């Protein structure tokens, strides 16, 4: 847990990132607020299409047309308002104070430049290093992220490295300038399970050494359980639950989080089948009225269809966007779930 006294490293308030196409508007991220404290790892989970990646790209202002961060959104980092910076100033933060690593180490590296060149480029862009110094630092960084024979690997091209090594190279690139915040967007999804564990371990170790915060974006609650101290659950462009990681796994409040947990296999599980959440994520051009999860929810009642739930305080550092917080008795009587789900998902 973070102490409320320390100032957050990153503050996101009412972030809305919409994509305008003709007259239809896809509200991919729709009023998201959260903080990241110094040195902490925050997990951001949700299904594909819930807005996690758009949230992370918005922080570095990497959203391209027709996407737009809407007026009224606020992103503060180290006390600076990122949304009011000019192009040069935001570029000075990218890869320097805030770095990103991405899901596909295969396609995230440029195939026509050597790995060393790509890592060294960060130092060339942000520092005053000479070509030679930047290259030496790149080799050193590759060594630090556990790339064997880094001097030789640095002269190789991405296609000559394995997936795990490529992701290590991405991490080396991201940590070159010792950023205060690392945004890791599905960093292990494309990797084998054993490599996944190695990469997560490496990130934890480097976090310790560099003293940075990590915003870990994933659809995999297993990854969250291993690495994060606090979890944000996103659904349909909104944060629907926020809780310390133990609380979330022990006592998730939101039915969507419940569904995610039930869809996850666990040690000693005696279930024959994993439970699935019926239906699919609705389209961001037409989020359902009321609670955006109501047509997939086992507990939904009239109020859920009519009234958008606010974030209810459940406990310390635990909030949930669900009317069950106001009417907890209803949790014992799920009704009409399958019928409702089948009707809307057909």
């Amino acid at each position, binding site marked *: 847990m973070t102490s409320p006294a320390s100032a957050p490293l990153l503050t996101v308030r009412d972030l809305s990132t919409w994509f305008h196409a003709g007259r239809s508007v896809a509200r991919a991220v729709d009023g998201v607020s959260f903080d990241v404290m110094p040195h902490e790892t925050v997990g951001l989970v949700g299904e594909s299409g819930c807005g996690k990646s758009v949230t992370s790209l918005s922080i570095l202002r990497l959203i391209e047309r027709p996407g737009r961060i809407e007026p009224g959104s606020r992103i503060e980092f180290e006390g600076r308002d990122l949304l009011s910076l000019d192009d040069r100033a935001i570029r000075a*933060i990218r890869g320097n104070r805030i770095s*990103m690593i991405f899901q596909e180490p295969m396609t995230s590296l*440029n195939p*026509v430049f050597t790995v060393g060149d790509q890592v060294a480029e960060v130092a060339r862009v942000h520092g005053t290093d000479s070509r030679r110094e930047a290259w030496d630092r790149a080799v050193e960084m590759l060594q630090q992220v556990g790339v064997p024979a880094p001097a030789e690997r640095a002269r190789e091209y991405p*296609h000559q490295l394995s997936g795990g090594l490529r992701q290590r190279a991405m991490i080396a690139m991201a940590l070159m300038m010792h950023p205060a915040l690392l945004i890791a967007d599905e960093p292990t999804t494309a990797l084998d399970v054993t490599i996944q564990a190695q990469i997560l371990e490496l990130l934890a170790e480097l976090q310790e050494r560099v003293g940075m915060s990590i915003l870990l974006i994933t659809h995999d609650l297993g990854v969250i359980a291993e690495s994060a101290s606090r979890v944000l659950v996103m659904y349909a462009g909104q944060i629907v639950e926020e809780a310390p990681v133990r609380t979330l796994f022990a006592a998730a409040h939101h039915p969507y989080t419940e569904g995610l947990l039930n869809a996850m296999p666990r040690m000693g599980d005696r279930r024959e089948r994993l439970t699935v959440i019926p239906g699919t994520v609705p389209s961001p051009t037409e989020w359902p009225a009321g609670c955006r999860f109501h047509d997939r929810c086992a507990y939904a009642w009239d109020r859920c269809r009519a009234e958008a739930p606010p974030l209810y305080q459940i406990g310390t550092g635990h909030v949930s966007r669900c009317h069950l917080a106001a009417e907890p008795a209803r949790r014992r009587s799920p009704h009409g779930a399958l019928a409702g789900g089948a009707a809307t998902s057909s």
Partner: protein
Amino acid sequence: MLRLLLRRAAHGILIVWLVATATFFLLHLAPGDPIAASLDSPLTPPAVRAHYRHVYGLDQPLSVQYGRWLAMMTHGDFGFSFPHRRPVSAVIASALPNTLLLMGVALVLAFAAGIALGLIQARHRGRPLDWSLALGSLFFYSMPDFWLALMLLFLFAFVWRLFPVTGMFDPVMYPYYGFWQRIGDRLWHLVLPACTLALLSAAAIARFQRAALLDVSGEDFVLTARAKGVSERRVLTHHILRNALLPVITLFGLALPVLLGGSVFVEKVFSWPGMGLLTVEAIGTRDYPLLTAAVVIASVLVIAGSFIADALYAVVDPRVRLE
């Protein structure tokens, strides 16, 4: 790598042979022959014609003529040109450098302009500058080469008199010029024909380059570069362009035959004493040896072009280098 080169070379020789053979038969099956073209006068007694036909072996069966010709070709002997009254190799030696100069300059201009236009369009995608350039390149892209040559000639040499009308150098003053003046004079004569050829290709290259750049700009590694803090300009000219050059290199291999075909018309219009002009004349005079030699040389150039394109691929893309 060596085996690949040898195989490519063998392919190349096979293609040259096929092209040359096809040209040989096509020409001999067409009505008329060099004797008819040069001695075609009612005053020439039939006996004289028959005599020359016999001397040059034109009365032999086609298969025998083909065999002799092939044997000569393999020894690098292209035969004798009747209308020029010189060995074909000598005729070509005086024309080929002129064509290579024209094509080389046109090629460099075309790719420099095409890639630059593509970059500008990609940078300003969807904005007025992009679509006005697209409209402009479509205009030149769809224009026939001889028409463009005539229009440039008309406007820049006749109406505004900025450039000379024809030839490679000033026919009167050239011998009296000093070294630098001669170079200047040659460049001045080169502008219109080279620009005609370059404009036609540059339009196609620009369209290709723009599409390739936009294609690559959606790749994941472009986002990585932006997230690293690299400026938009460098992202485009460094990370995107290097990848987007690959399809344009393919175009390089394809551009040579187009340029070569175009140079036939352009050389004719500007009276540029190159292979194109030579070929056109050779068709008129039924100059079999010169014509087949010209076709063989053209096919060698085209094959060399695709060879160079392959080599450039390896320079730009490390993934090709290893295979």
